[in-house]
């Protein structure tokens, strides 16, 4: 019976969402304050109902209720307890429920933490979010109900996909969805501003902390996904330009453009329409991503459960949400260019470069992702667009962005002079060139492109740090504004990421070997000795576990134990790579197939990956920067009406 309660709770959430979408919206047009106040109650009740619903599905996994079809298909009596929790979102139905739960949490957060906003505006924002929720709940209830019964009940479950039996997968989807779904808040703010005809800079200031938090979650969510692919898939890669990865990357790119253009609109009033459009696009691309992943339109290594009828539903939903918001934009967006003008050399120009680069990157990823579909639609056959296309275009697009970034940080709003900038930027530029040249001399095999990448990363890092130094020396005090620290942290993160990316893409060594017990293999400075394999019994799998001793010279560095697991219930085999992580290099060993009858000889893959950790370290910095920026005190002050524009030479930080 309990499972049916979960479904009833879901239906009640749909009704609540309808109330949330309708009543406050009517209130804003009739001026009925009680109607508008309904928004808070409805938002909180909806959140509670979804928590109940989600809790009941989780409970069904914990107690192993195999009379529920979704549980029977994604769990097994031998599944360890912690995976029973993550199994809830391991397949289509449950991940949609998680998506919706997270949306409800965001809505409740907006209801709780936006009491300072003008009443009408706040009611509109919540009502728009209510409509988004209605669509998604309908989608779950009509096409993807996770509470369906299996009659007769299964005796044993099919087990969780072993790829997903992993710590990374426990936290990767929730964080990613926090980001995806979080952009709905910026979207709702933009739509509310358009509806009210109040497209000034207020809505931008109010929506900034929400956008930053969503962006921070998306950043870390994508980074975790890449880390998971690296250690779990067993072939040492960290990014595959797979349609599903692209689906999460497009909102990130647009979101990055958005947080920068919001800065311009808030501070200077410029780029107003552009900021609106980016806010609408970031969430639209999140929905498009959901469509691509769930509809089976594109084939992908991530294709868990895809189904064209679900595709039609999401497409209709996407069409309504995005189509109506863009129509609203076409009707209501201000016709006049707002905000102060700016000179060629000004911070506005540099942020414009940022926005153009990120928008072009997003358009390029979208094109590359949909191109196979277009070719197929024209009947010209099946192709796939892979790393060569994306890698090449990204490298070239990064050039203007990286060059412009530190200059932009130093440049004043409105107008600045090249000579002033040149004076301040001499040193970081010189240091970056020396650093890049030094790395190239030490590791000549990285080649020009990677050396340039390292130089670019160093240029971003030194430029960011010099700016902090510049502020300190000018102010003669040790207090640095939180927003500058946040910006510096995120930009240093980008620099670290770029250096890691450049080095790992050229310095990595990998070797596929046939190894018998006792064999040794020398890679770079390390000697890998294979001692043999033994059988290991896990809770729901049996594994061949290899043992490798790694020496550097005569000194033992580490012992690695890669596994080849067989999961009994599904009959899947999984490679569990063994990794010795390090700040400057990872050692990575994975077991392939046994090559003879008695299990002495194995196919073994050995990798040496220098600086790969820097990719994720940089992403962590970026996320922390985003959170720090959102935590800025000025967002928590009472929201005043538009205040006068900062003028003069005072440097205001983005």
């Amino acid at each position, binding site marked *: 019976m309990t499972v049916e309660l979960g479904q009833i709770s879901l239906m009640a959430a749909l009704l609540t969402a309808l109330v949330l979408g309708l009543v406050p919206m009517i209130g804003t047009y009739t001026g009925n304050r009680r109607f508008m106040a309904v928004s808070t109650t409805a938002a909180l009740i909806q959140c509670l109902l979804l928590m109940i619903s989600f809790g009941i599905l989780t409970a069904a996994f914990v107690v192993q209720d195999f009379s529920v079809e979704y549980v029977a*298909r994604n769990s097994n009596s031998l599944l360890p307890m912690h995976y029973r929790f993550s199994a809830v979102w391991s397949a289509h139905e449950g991940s949609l429920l998680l998506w919706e739960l997270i949306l409800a949490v965001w809505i409740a957060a907006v209801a709780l933490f936006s009491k300072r906003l003008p009443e009408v505006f706040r009611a509109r924002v919540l009502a728009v979010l209510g409509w988004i929720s209605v669509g998604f709940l309908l989608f779950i209830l009509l096409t993807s109900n996770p509470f369906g019964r299996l009659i007769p009940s299964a*005796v044993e479950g099919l087990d969780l996909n072993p790829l997903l039996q992993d710590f990374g997968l426990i936290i990767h989807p929730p964080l990613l969805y926090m980001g995806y779904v979080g952009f709905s808040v910026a979207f709702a703010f933009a739509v509310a501003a358009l509806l009210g005809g109040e497209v000034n800079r207020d809505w931008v200031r109010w929506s900034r902390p929400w956008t930053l938090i969503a962006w921070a979650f998306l950043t870390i969510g994508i980074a975790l996904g890449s880390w998971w692919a690296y250690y779990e898939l067993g072939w040492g890669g960290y990014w595959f330009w797979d349609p599903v990865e692209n689906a999460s990357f497009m909102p990130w790119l647009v979101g990055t453009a958005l947080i920068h253009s919001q800065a311009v609109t808030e501070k200077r009033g410029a780029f107003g329409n552009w900021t609106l459009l980016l806010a609408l*696009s970031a969430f639209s691309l999140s929905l*498009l991503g959901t469509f691509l992943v769930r509809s089976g339109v594109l084939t992908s290594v991530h294709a868990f459960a895809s189904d064209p009828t679900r595709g039609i539903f999401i497409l209709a939903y996407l069409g309504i949400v995005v189509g109506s918001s*863009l129509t609203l934009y076409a009707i209501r967006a201000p016709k006049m260019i707002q905000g102060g003008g700016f000179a060629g050399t000004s911070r506005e120009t540099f942020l414009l470069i940022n926005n153009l680069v990120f928008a072009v990157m997003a358009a390029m990823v979208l094109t590359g992702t*949909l191109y196979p*579909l277009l070719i197929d639609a024209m009947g010209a056959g099946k192709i796939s667009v892979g790393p060569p296309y994306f890698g090449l275009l990204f490298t070239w697009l990064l050039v203007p962005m990286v060059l412009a970034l530190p200059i932009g940080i130093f440049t004043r709003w409105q107008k600045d002079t090249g000579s002033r900038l040149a004076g301040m930027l001499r040193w970081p530029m010189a240091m970056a060139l020396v650093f890049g040249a030094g790395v190239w001399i030490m590791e000549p095999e990285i080649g020009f492109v990677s050396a340039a990448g390292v130089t670019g990363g160093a240029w971003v890092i030194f430029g960011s740090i010099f700016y902090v130094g510049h502020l300190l020396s000018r102010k003669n005090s040790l207090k640095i504004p939180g927003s500058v620290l946040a910006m510096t942290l995120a930009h240093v993160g980008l620099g670290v990421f770029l250096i890691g990316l450049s080095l790992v893409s050229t310095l990595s060594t990998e070797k596929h070997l046939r190894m018998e017990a006792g064999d040794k293999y020398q890679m770079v400075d390390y000697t890998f000795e294979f001692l043999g394999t033994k059988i290991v019994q896990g809770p729901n799998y049996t594994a061949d576990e290899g043992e490798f001793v790694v020496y550097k010279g005569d000194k033992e560095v580490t012992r690695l134990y890669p596994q080849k697991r067989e999961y009994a219930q599904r009959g899947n085999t999984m490679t569990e790579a063994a990794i010795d992580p390090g700040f400057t290099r990872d050692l990575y060993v994975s077991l392939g197939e046994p090559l003879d009858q008695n299990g002495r000889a194995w196919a073994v893959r050995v990798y040496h990956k220098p600086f790969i950790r820097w990719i994720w370290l940089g992403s962590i910095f970026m996320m922390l920067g985003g959170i720090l920026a959102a935590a800025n005190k000025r967002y928590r002050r009472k929201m005043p009406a538009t205040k006068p524009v900062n003028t003069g030479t005072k440097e205001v930080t983005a």
Partner: protein
Amino acid sequence: MNSRLFPLLGFLLLVGLLVVGLKIADRKTNLPSPLIDKPVPAFDLPVLASPGERMSKESLLGKPYLVNFWGSWCVTCRAEHPVVTELARLNAVYIVGMNFRDESTDAIAWLKRWGNPYDVSLIDFDGRVSIDFGVYAAPETFLVDPSGTIVFKHLGQLTWEVVQNEILPRVANMESGS
């Protein structure tokens, strides 16, 4: 023209493309088979792992059965294996594994390694029967009714949705009808 309309127009073009994409995704999974409602092609094949034994179309008459074409070389067959296993566990329908274009030793090892969901496996070594069935890719699955007529065909990986929405209801129908 109003430039603020461009984003909307761009989006409409995108939706058009996605609609076509959905059509394609749909067509890929719903190729009609000329064999539906036709009698099962004749076969008389050796049984895997029991030398000397054979099984023919005639000996299977009188009960509904599923013919699942597979081979140890077929990656997708590995992917659909858990679904076939689960279906076998339900004991709802007799499952004939049609091992085609495969070495019997490989096929036996495959079944030993991953588990054998089939009530019987037949050896279609040269793939001649698979041609009669119109199979051009593995896996492919046919549902046959007690009179020996093909009532349903699925191309590609068998999913639980197909088992539940297409196969099990048809089997239940045959049993209540006979």
